[in-house]
């Protein structure tokens, strides 16, 4: 009987594919499923704070509608499947804050294209997940509404900036969730929470309705329990969009069909520069074992070089803060959000922005403004864009020789809440393996590949060239199916 805790637990342990199959077979209804996830959130989110808000009334109404549609023969791919959405994505009629006090109470008049496509495929929105303010951070501690906790250890961060989405999926509060990845913000929290996180190639998924942070780097991606679920959600979300001129005008492959391809002969590159000092020993051991596992499955392991690796983080921080300083100019207290009165219009801007933005957002706006300001533009911003070219060329050369590149996702497992808050540079260094993919427009996925001695999950990163999602999904799926990491769940 639904309502009994065991039955609820069984329903909430499901990912997207399981939920879809159960719904199609009539084993349970979308109302049962949605109710189970809402109850689970009710029970565990007080200690996690993965959600900023839930939408039970509209979710249950949409679920009932999905059940009626199914009875009438509707068979859309996500019909009746609940999902959670990171709060930097606009959801029509549902408050959207980007984790910032400056947008408190903002109710968007339209939804992001990615959200619209998921809903058009039948998905049910459970609520909005916590994030570092404007997606600026690697721990979700920069949220204006308090941090999210890691389901594997409540004293630790879930990673970030999509920490709410990753924690929600790991804690069985949602079958899957959307995140966004500007420098690793889907992959790193997925790694730290022991779930799957896919960053599509730049241009694969429309950014329309994504509250912009770094426009040349931002991508929306799924956070899921399995590789197959990531492939399925990408299939639904991907594609050219007239409302985002930076989407690639290419057909969307059937990503799910790529999963079962044999990886014998697949060329897997191991970048020498990614296995240097500073990596937690257990992370390196797990990643090395995963590489051996890929070799056992028939992949050809190829040592490669990415000589400009050390420059990726400094380039990333100059490019992303410059873009952020321009993007966040729109928060002026006139069209939406917080408004603090001032004597003059400029005083009004200063007071509103000074009161509404948190410390990390101010720091990044200042850094970007500095890098773009007269006298420093050539030395910082232009220079960073030139070095970005060299980083991209490294990957172009590497992908001429290999199909995918494998590395750790994060140099360490989840760190303690508060551990790096006062040291912005230490926090930045957690993104060391992830930012290059955004600078070069690559696709990447993080999948579970082990646990450290403290029982914290470790993530394996697979990178592919622009529009190379099929190969990374294929390799990730082969590895996932040959291991049992995905079966271990946190106790809550």
């Amino acid at each position: 009987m639904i309502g009994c805790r065991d039955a609820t637990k069984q329903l909430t342990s499901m990912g997207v594919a399981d939920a879809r199959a159960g719904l199609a077979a009539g084993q349970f209804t979308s109302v049962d499923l949605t109710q189970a996830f809402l109850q689970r959130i009710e029970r565990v989110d007080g200690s996690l704070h993965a959600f900023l808000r839930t939408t039970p009334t509209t979710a249950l109404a949409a679920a009932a509608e999905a059940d009626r549609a199914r009875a009438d023969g509707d068979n859309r791919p996500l019909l009746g499947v609940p999902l959670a959405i990171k709060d930097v994505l606009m959801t029509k009629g549902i408050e959207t804050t980007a984790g910032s006090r400056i947008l408190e109470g903002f109710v968007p008049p339209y939804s992001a294209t990615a959200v619209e496509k998921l809903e058009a495929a039948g998905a049910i929105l459970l609520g909005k997940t916590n994030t570092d303010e404007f997606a600026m951070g690697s721990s979700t501690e920069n949220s204006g509404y308090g941090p999210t906790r890691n389901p594997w250890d409540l004293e630790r961060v879930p990673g970030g900036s999509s920490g709410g989405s990753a924690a929600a999926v790991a804690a069985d509060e949602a079958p899957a969730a959307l995140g966004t990845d500007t420098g690793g913000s889907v992959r790193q929290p997925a790694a730290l929470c022991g779930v799957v996180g896919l960053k599509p190639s730049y241009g694969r998924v429309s950014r329309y309705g994504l509250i912009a942070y770094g426009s040349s780097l931002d991508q929306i991606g799924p956070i899921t329990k399995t590789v197959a679920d990531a492939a399925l959600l990408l299939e639904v979300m991907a594609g050219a969009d007239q409302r985002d001129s930076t989407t690639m005008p290419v057909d969307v492959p059937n990503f799910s069909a790529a999963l079962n391809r044999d990886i014998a002969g697949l060329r897997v590159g191991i970048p020498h520069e990614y296995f240097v000092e500073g990596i937690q020993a257990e992370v390196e051991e797990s990643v090395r074992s995963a590489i051996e596992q890929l070799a056992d499955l028939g992949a050809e392991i190829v040592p490669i070089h990415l000589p400009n690796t050390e420059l990726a983080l400094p380039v990333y921080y100059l490019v992303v803060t410059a873009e952020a300083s321009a993007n966040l100019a729109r928060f002026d207290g006139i069209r939406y959000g917080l408004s603090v009165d001032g004597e003059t219009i400029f005083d009004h801007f200063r007071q509103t922005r000074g009161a509404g933005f948190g410390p990390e957002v101010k720091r990044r706006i200042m850094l970007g403004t500095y890098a773009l300001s007269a006298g420093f533009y050539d030395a910082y911003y232009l220079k960073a864009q030139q070095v970005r070219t060299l980083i991209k060329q490294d990957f172009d050369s590497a992908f001429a020789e290999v199909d995918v590149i494998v590395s750790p996702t994060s140099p360490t497992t989840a760190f303690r809440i508060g551990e790096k808050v006062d040291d912005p540079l230490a926090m930045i260094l957690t993104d060391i393996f992830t930012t290059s993919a955004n600078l070069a427009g690559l696709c990447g996925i993080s999948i579970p590949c082990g646990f450290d001695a403290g029982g914290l999950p470790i993530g394996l990163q697979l990178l592919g060239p622009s529009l190379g999602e099929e190969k990374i999904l294929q390799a990730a799926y082969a590895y996932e199916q040959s291991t049992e990491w995905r079966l271990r769940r946190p106790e809550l």
Partner: protein
Amino acid sequence: MKLTRDEVRHVAELAKLQLSDAELDEYAGQLGQILTYAQQVQSVDTSAVPPTPHILPLSNVLADDMSQTCLSAAQAVDNAPDADEGYFRVIAVFDDNGA
């Protein structure tokens, strides 16, 4: 590298951010530290390297010229702190001297 309080104040003014004295001091140290780290890029010879502002193989992307539904004026100002008959109301931008 450490920025002076005046340099931080200048950047804050460009970014239209009201900062307290404590914030000015804190950012002077932190921005200096991050900029020192970022200066690594300056050691690279890029004399023959073009910049990459974005990675797309696209330029001059055009949309079909078709009429589409869009937000009404009322919807567009619905979130505005101060709106009047479909307009955003703001403090006067120019002073009496026209400056």
